[in-house]
């Protein structure tokens, strides 16, 4: 039996082998295909352009072309469901509209209706007949454009009349809309398409003249039904040849007919055997079986509901190219649902120039493929082996497409990215995945020259392998840059192990200089006017970073640097100083450098491992983060420094409530526990000592206000509670030098009269990026308001 389940029921395109389903036929199988994925289908326009738009509900499932695109500026993926495949949207518009078609439909729709309302009588002709008589379609004039004011359905079996707007999905088959304007040929074609769609055993159309010159159309039908079934099977017929059954000779004898039907039956069974299992899970299968059992006889309406259910599952799961193409094996105990899932048969990567023309890209294709999600990577690797392509599981999925888009976007190489599934013209039901990329200019230079300025340049994507060189030079005073000139020159070499190696290591070599105020030479409470010490570093750093996940990584490398300590007048200084009560300066404070000369040179190994599995649940961070960092001295440098400086920080973000994830759902309250231990064995110059106090150490104190020490322990707890879209939090923190301040040469903690330990507690509110908090300094017992940017943890 034939039943054409089309993507869009209004599609007038079924190619059916039997013009009319016949219940009494002994045969059970026929193929009838609406061929939704067949390319180059003529886009017929059975409906005039003024037709009201199709219900949006039916739009999405039938979308044929969807385009994921991202621009480098806004890293959001946009999904466009376009009406590209004209065959699919038979009734709608011009059919070949590409991505824009979808929108134009929406936008043009209200205009069309309005036009109808404003100018009645101009676009259509009156029937010119007396009112209230029933006219056969054949009797209508072929020249006139009739306005159809009413579409009624008459179910002969149920003996009931319903109007087209009653909402029965069944009537989506009919493309006639009340208020539309149609020619006689349109109406005849509509009737023919209804007759061949397989949903009706019998269908007829009559027109009734109305006194106002419009027509009322009544479609009388008998719904097709088949014998009841109690099992359901879904098969994947994508990439399979469509079988065209042998033409049945009308002059066949009974015996011949039997033979013919039996042959067809056999063929269909073979087809089922050849087909691949589909993704539809068993629970959904069971649900459909229940539907079948409840219903009794299988009716066209039921099949439609089954189709909708199956397609809904696919589309909900992101398989937007999947669709039910046919039901077969009707009139047996088992209903077979044929699905084309949208298997990816080919990956095509295109580069576009600024004008959108296809051009040769600089980026190597392997790099793009590497960033595509695994489903497609598997596919790419098997390009040479077409057998592999047919493996189950490479079905185009929207989520995978979005991920591909995200990954490609994060490379920062493309200004525009489109991931676009297109139907494969050679493989029926196949999808060609098109990735269209617009590359950004590889070289850029920027300069802002004022008295203080920055000059930066970048050369991206060297050899098309995303290697880059970038540099920045900035000075507060370009007229006299030797005062303070900071620069950074960096070379980044991703895919150190090769493009095709799954290991993701990135090499970096950088040359830097920076100047920071030392938090070691800072006074404790009551000690004001501690002369500032600036720490200048110039150095070279070479590291290799291996990414395990998006957030977890292991970095190791070597650092060689020269550290110079300067006082406020920019002259090199060797010791910290403190104002004496007499007004003089005591210049014999803790030594600033290891060598004692004010200039240290040192080379050491550095390793950092970060384990971060935090994720956002409705905007709140939840998970764990552990960071371990170690600097290992190598006897290389001034005074042959040998040291091991290490720190471990552990942070837990514990949600106190399980919440549903969703865009508008509130985040859960989160308890944050944080601990940090740092220590150093061996040579420890003051600029490398751990400092206590500050917004990222112990809140409520200034940077370094609590001390500078060899070993450090910080403990913090914070409770974040969402309140009306923002976050309110309370916290308590403690930092302790573990008595190790005296083990820093010159004991800067004591020299500047700092406590060496301290606690604080407070509360705050987060407004956007900023945090406003009140923190109580437990040592002094006083509190103060702070405004900070970014998160503490």
């Amino acid at each position, binding site marked *: 039996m034939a039943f054409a389940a089309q993507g869009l029921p209004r599609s007038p395109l079924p190619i059916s082998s039997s013009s009319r389903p016949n219940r009494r036929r002994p045969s059970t199988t026929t193929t009838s295909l609406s061929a939704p994925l067949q390319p180059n289908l003529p886009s017929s326009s059975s409906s005039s352009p003024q037709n009201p738009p199709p219900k949006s509900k039916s739009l999405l499932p039938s979308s044929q072309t969807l385009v994921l695109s991202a621009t480098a500026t806004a890293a959001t993926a946009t999904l466009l469901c376009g009406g590209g495949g004209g065959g699919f949207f038979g009734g709608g518009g011009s059919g070949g509209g590409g991505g824009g078609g979808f929108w134009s439909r929406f936008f043009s729709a209200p205009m069309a209706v309005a036009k109808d309302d404003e100018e009645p009588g101009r676009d259509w002709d009156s029937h010119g007949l007396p009112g209230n008589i029933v006219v056969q379609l054949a009797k209508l004039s072929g020249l006139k454009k009739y306005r159809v004011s009413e579409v009624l359905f008459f179910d002969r079996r149920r003996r009931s009349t319903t109007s087209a707007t009653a909402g029965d999905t069944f009537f989506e088959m009919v493309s006639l809309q009340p208020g539309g304007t149609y020619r006689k040929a349109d109406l005849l074609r509509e009737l023919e398409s209804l007759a061949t769609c397989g949903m009706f055993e019998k269908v007829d159309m009559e027109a009734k003249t109305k006194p106002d010159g419009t027509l009322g159309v009544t479609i009388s039908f008998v719904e097709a039904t088949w014998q009841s079934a109690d099992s359901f099977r879904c098969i994947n017929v994508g990439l399979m040849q469509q079988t065209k059954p042998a033409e049945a000779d009308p002059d066949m004898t009974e015996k011949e007919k039997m033979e013919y039907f039996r042959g067809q039956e056999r063929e269909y069974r073979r087809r089922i055997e050849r087909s691949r*299992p589909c*993704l*539809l*899970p*068993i*629970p959904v*299968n069971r649900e459909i079986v229940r539907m079948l059992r409840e219903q009794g006889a299988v009716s066209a309406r039921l099949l439609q509901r089954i189709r909708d259910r199956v397609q809904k599952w696919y589309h909900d*799961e*992101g*398989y937007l190219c999947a669709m039910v193409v046919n039901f077969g094996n009707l009139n047996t105990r088992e209903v077979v649902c044929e699905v084309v899932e949208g298997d990816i048969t080919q990956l095509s990567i295109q580069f576009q120039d600024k004008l959108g023309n296809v051009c040769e890209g600089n980026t190597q294709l392997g790099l793009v493929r590497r960033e595509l*999600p*695994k*489903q497609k990577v*598997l596919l790419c690797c098997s390009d040479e082996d077409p057998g592999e392509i047919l493996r*189950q*599981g*490479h*079905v185009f*999925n929207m*989520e*995978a497409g979005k991920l591909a888009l995200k990954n490609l976007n994060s490379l920062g190489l493309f200004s525009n990215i489109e991931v676009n599934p297109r139907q494969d013209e050679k493989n029926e039901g196949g999808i060609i995945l098109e990735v269209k990329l617009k590359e950004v200019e590889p070289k850029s230079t920027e300069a802002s020259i004022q008295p203080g300025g920055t000059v930066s340049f970048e050369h991206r994507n060297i050899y098309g392998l995303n290697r880059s060189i970038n540099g920045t030079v900035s000075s507060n005073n370009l007229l006299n840059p030797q005062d303070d000139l900071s620069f950074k020159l960096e070379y980044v070499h991703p895919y150190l192990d090769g493009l095709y190696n799954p290991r993701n290591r990135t090499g970096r070599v950088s040359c830097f200089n920076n100047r920071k105020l030392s938090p070691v030479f800072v006074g404790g409470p009551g000690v004001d006017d501690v002369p500032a010490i600036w720490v200048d570093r110039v150095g070279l750093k070479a590291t290799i970073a291996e990414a*395990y*996940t998006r957030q*977890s990584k*292991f970095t190791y490398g070597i650092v060689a640097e020269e550290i110079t300590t300067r006082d406020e007048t920019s002259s090199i200084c060797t010791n910290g100083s403190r104002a*004496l*009560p007499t007004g003089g300066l*005591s210049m*014999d404070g803790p030594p600033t450098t*290891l060598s004692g000369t004010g200039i240290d040179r040192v080379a050491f190994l550095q*390793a950092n*491992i970060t*384990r971060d*599995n935090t994720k956002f649940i409705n905007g709140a961070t939840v998970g764990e983060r*552990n960071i*371990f960092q*170690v600097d*290992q001295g190598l006897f290389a440098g001034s005074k042959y420094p*040998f*040291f*091991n400086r*290490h720190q*471990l920080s552990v942070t837990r973000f514990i949600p106190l409530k399980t919440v549903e994830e969703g865009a508008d759902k509130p985040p859960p309250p989160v308890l944050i526990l944080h601990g940090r231990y740092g220590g150093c*064995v*061996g*040579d*420890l110059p003051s600029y490398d000592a751990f400092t206590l106090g500050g917004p990222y150490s112990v809140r409520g104190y200034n940077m370094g206000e609590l001390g500078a020490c*060899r070993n450090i322990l910080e403990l913090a707890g914070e409770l974040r509670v969402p309140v009306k879209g923002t976050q309110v939090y309370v916290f308590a923190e403690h930092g302790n030098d573990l008595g190790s301040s*005296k*083990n*820093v*040469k010159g004991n800067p903690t*004591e*020299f500047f*009269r700092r406590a060496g330990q301290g606690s604080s507690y407070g509360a705050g509110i987060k407004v956007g990026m900023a945090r406003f908090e009140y923190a109580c300094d437990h040592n002094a017992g006083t509190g103060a308001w702070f405004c900070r940017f970014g998160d503490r943890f």
Partner: protein
Amino acid sequence: MASQVTREWSGIQQFPVATQTKLLELLAKLRNDNVNSLTILVMGKGGVGKSSTVNSILGERVAPVSAFQSEGLRPVLYSRSRAGFTLNIIDTPGIIEGGYVNEHAVEVIKRFLLNKTIDILLYVERLDSYRVDNLDRQVIKAIADSFGKGIWRRGVVVLTHAQLSPPDGLNYEDFFAKRSEAVLRVVRLGARIKRQEFQENAIPVALVENSGRCNTNDSGEKVLPNGIAWIPSLVNTITEVVSNGSKPIFVDKKLIDGPNPNAWGKIWIPLIVAFQYFVVIKGIKKQIKEDIAKDDRPLWELRDLGLADRNF
């Protein structure tokens, strides 16, 4: 000043005869124990009477003293010899400044004492102040930190201004006992000496009255309200401490610089690195692997990998 020549202890002749006799007796006793010289370090807060005490012991007005002006900023060594015995007394400036211990002053004292041996520490405090505070502790701690805890085994607590009339309701002995107990307690806490150790090796307390109005007894000796001649008594206490079996403190470079924290533990660094690599880094790597295994993969990926088995 370290090179100051040793002069004849002429000041001893200023003392009453009885005192002289006692002193010479004690010195002879020390000589018998093969102690030919004695170096006494006098420390304490400013204005407690350190210099006056030095003057009183030597019997000369060597250190300038005035009622309102604190003494000089440098330590001074006074060296006197008598009958083959050399007595060195080092007077130090007060090490308190602005409510804190002045590390600078401590540093100067330490440098001054380089390559000298300290036999006795006189920690000077006033008897007539009623209270001990955190500052005392800091001073004591600074002394202990500078020269090691061991110096307190050679320590004598000296309470000056001993000629006082105690507050109402207390007799002199009780007041002295209370006050010395309080001071000793602060010494114990400040120097972080264990209670038991402190009890076994009690730090003696000596009383001093430097005032010229000090009462004298029949033989002209300066006596305290309890009738004890304090100079011989102090020297006696000192000789007892010298012969209590503890070692004198030799101030060398190492003691001045303190232990070099940068050198400590260097030898363990290779072990530490091995621990960090094999335990910490490997451990975190393992956690990352677990994270990857646990990660919620989207359903489509599981289906693609053939893990769904049509169950979802």
